[in-house]
């Protein structure tokens, strides 16, 4: 009998069909590897199983009986636990304290306890069982901060295990773990499986999925496109399933043809290494060119951009702008003409209470000063200039310069940050996730403006987790894997499937 089963589940968000007719059954004692690229529907499926969302169509069966979850609590009561990717461990508490964090205890002095409360003896017994199972019995007294990353992950699993679930969903349990650390995680997963738990192992690391799973389920564009034994797959064939249509050998003709017209290299990085993960990155970007940089989360694409922008100090290698090395500070990089549009606009981009004009001129308001030596600003002239810049970026409605930037839409905030780059008169434009959280219309506009920047002689480097975006923008795409550039795609090689495949597989 299955522990949990979804049958014919579909889910729609406004404008997006996230899942289409997905069926998946989990039996006790098996590990199902769930793979798929960003946006394939893994998270949606996870949220449905965790009771966070209800599917628009389809049925949910727990132990053979149809049920509907009205919230996460229902899923927990049905024995389903989700261990999220983010670490929720408190560094100053011991491992044991971290495991029992939030468990309702029975009151000692007779007061009314919650229904789900556990007695102290019972809790002790459960903690030691769980710690045995996961192989962390020896570390219960250690402080959270002294634990290796794998133990920290295991603590999160242990916390979930205290509720005695029958189904566990592990979201990227080995992300950012070293091979030997991951090994420990596999041991724990195997032990849980042997005791009859049903596990879902969600991961981008294909070789791990192939190794640990008893069944592999591939999602693509919201559909199950494959469900097979791992023995029937190779890493490469699995990557093809994830990426979509079969890959042919890279068309060699398109590559290397270059040098037809004079390339004026503006930005060049040689053997760049940045802690913690980026190694030996060499790249160049020429005038008028849009180069993409792709890779899974945490491979270091953003770190490369931040290093070039002067925000992360390189451990080795050099960054040359028009052949001249720049000092690794943000101030020096701005002076040298490196514009950087950060990812996560809310945390890194805007100061919410500032006016749009101040946002645009922040870090480059020299031309608006009353005198060179007197940094009092002529705000009327500033507002006029900024409105002019915003006009060239088609920011509507016009005359937004004096509004506070927090009242702009996400797309317009991004345009304001772009106007800052224009105002600084940069040679090099670095875009980190340029259309993150922006609606479709604004996204197309931003793309148009990025291409325009290149046409006007800028050298543009774009990092994006969406292959589609890179295909729309770039003539070349560098694919990173584990902190290194492992593929360089040019010409017709620049396609979504190639980018996805290369970022999953690494060096071919």
């Amino acid at each position, binding site marked *: 009998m299955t522990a949990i089963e979804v049958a014919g589940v579909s889910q729609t968000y406004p404008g997006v069909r996230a899942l289409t007719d997905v069926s998946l059954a989990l039996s006790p004692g098996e590990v199902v590897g769930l793979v798929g690229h960003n946006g394939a529907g893994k998270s949606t499926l996870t949220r449905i199983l965790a009771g966070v969302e209800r599917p628009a169509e389809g049925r949910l069966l727990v132990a053979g009986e149809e049920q509907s979850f009205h919230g996460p609590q229902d899923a927990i009561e049905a024995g389903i636990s989700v261990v999220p990717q983010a670490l929720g461990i408190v560094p100053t508490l011991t491992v044991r304290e971290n495991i029992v964090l939030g468990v309702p205890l029975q009151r000692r002095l007779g007061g009314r306890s919650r229904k789900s409360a556990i007695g102290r003896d019972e809790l002790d017994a459960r903690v030691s069982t769980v710690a045995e199972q996961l192989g962390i019995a020896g570390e219960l007294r250690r402080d959270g901060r002294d634990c290796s990353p794998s133990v920290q992950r295991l603590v999160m699993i242990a916390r979930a295990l205290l509720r005695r679930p029958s189904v566990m969903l592990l979201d990227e349990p080995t992300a950012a773990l070293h091979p030997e650390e991951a090994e420990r995680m596999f041991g724990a997963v195997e032990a849980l499986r042997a005791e009859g738990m049903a596990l879902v192992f969600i991961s981008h690391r294909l070789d791990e999925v192939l190794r640990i799973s008893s069944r592999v389920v591939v999602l693509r564009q919201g559909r199950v496109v494959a469900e097979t034994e791992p023995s029937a797959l190779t890493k490469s064939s699995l990557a093809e399933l994830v990426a979509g249509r079969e890959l042919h050998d890279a068309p060699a003709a398109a590559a290397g043809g270059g040098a037809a017209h004079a390339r004026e290299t503006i930005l060049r990085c040689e053997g760049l290494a940045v802690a913690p993960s980026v190694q030996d990155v060499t790249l160049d970007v020429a005038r008028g060119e849009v180069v993409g940089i792709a890779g899974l989360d945490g491979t270091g694409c953003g770190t490369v951009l931040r290093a070039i922008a002067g925000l992360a100090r390189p451990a080795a290698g050099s960054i040359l702008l028009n052949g001249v090395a720049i000092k690794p500070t943000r101030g020096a990089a701005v002076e040298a003409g490196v514009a950087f549009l950060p990812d996560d606009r809310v945390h*890194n981009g805007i100061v919410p209470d500032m006016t749009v004009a101040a946002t645009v001129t922040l870090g480059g308001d020299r031309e608006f000063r009353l005198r060179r030596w007197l940094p009092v600003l002529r705000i009327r002239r500033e507002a006029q200039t900024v409105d002019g810049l915003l006009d060239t970026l088609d920011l509507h409605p016009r005359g937004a310069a004096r509004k506070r930037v927090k009242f*702009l839409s996400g797309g317009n905030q991004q345009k304001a940050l772009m106007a800052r780059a224009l105002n600084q008169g940069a040679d090099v434009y670095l875009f980190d996730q340029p259309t993150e959280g922006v609606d479709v219309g604004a996204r197309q506009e931003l793309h148009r403006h990025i291409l325009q920047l290149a046409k006007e002689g800028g050298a543009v480097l774009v990092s994006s987790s969406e292959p589609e975006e890179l295909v729309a923008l770039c003539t070349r795409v560098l694919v990173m894997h584990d902190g290194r550039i492992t593929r360089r795609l040019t010409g017709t090689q620049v396609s979504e499937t190639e980018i996805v495949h290369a970022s999953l597989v690494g060096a071919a």
Partner: protein
Amino acid sequence: MSPKPEGSRPADPTQSSGGVLTEEPPAASAAARQSARPVGSRLLERLIPRPATADGGGVTSLDRSARRRAFVGQIGVPLMGLALIVVFSLIADNFLTGSNIKDIFSQAALPLIVATGLTICLSMGEFDLSLNGVAGLATVLMAVLVARKGMSPLLAIPLVLALGVGIGAVNGVLVGYFGVAALIVTIAVNSILQGWEFVVSGSVQIFGGFPPGLVSFARGSVLGIPTLVLIAAAVAWLAWVLLERTTLGRHLRAIGGNAEAARIAGVNTARVKLAGFIITALLASLAGLLFAARETNAYPLNGLDVLLPSFAACFIGAAMFKIGEFNIPGTIVGVMIAQITANGLILLNVATYASYFFQGIILLIALLFARVVVTGGRST
């Protein structure tokens, strides 16, 4: 408060799928509001204009209840100030007299100079708890230099101000360049400075021997306005220009609003913090030396007690004018409320200890209003 910018995040799908019983669509409810609206909310509309979203229409960032809270908070502090004036003028018949009003302003001058400096420090998201130490040491040093050593005030004043700059630089370097928490740095520096007051003064009270020119300057008036009030007004005006109209002010506020975004934009955050701490300490030392000149005596740990009133004034001020941001006009109102309270209680012959008691309560109420405006009443 901090309304989320519209569309800054991908729409949370969990809300759309679960929300079967959502409220009426925003467009419809907005129309309904237009028709049946109480008189009070029209005033609210004028005081807190509905922010127009840049996409033209759409959902506004401040919903109705947040706007009502903002309204209550925003008029709360001025109303309280007005209530204080009415109550004091009713029960103390010498409250609303020309000389008493002049008195209130005179008494407010030095606290305002310190609070102005603190506003600059707070607007960059930092603290300065060494204000009492800086002002106290400036008072004692000024007294020693002019009254005991007979130094000319024209020499002593720059010297004392230079000391203020030095102290601010220590705070600023430790916080800005070494990244030590301002809370603990400035407490430690305060302790050092208060110890120093005893060293400088030799632990004895200094009185008499002040140059008459200095004293008559500090106690005098120009065109009927006390000189100290004029100085405080000039300081406040300069600080307003600094914060609202200069590059440094922009950078200070950018760091206070989002330090990481400021750094990414190319702001040298360490240097700006250094500048901010220097200005704060400079103004505290200015207030301290003027205090010595006006009082013509100085004793360690018996100088201006400005720490709590300055913080209170700044936080009350953050609830007015530019809501949620520390700003100079707001700070001025905050200082005046504290001074009116103190003055009124003295006129009522309230014992000093009881006066502390009432001042504390009135400050807490004002701060509560301020908090409601800034956070929308959420406790976290």
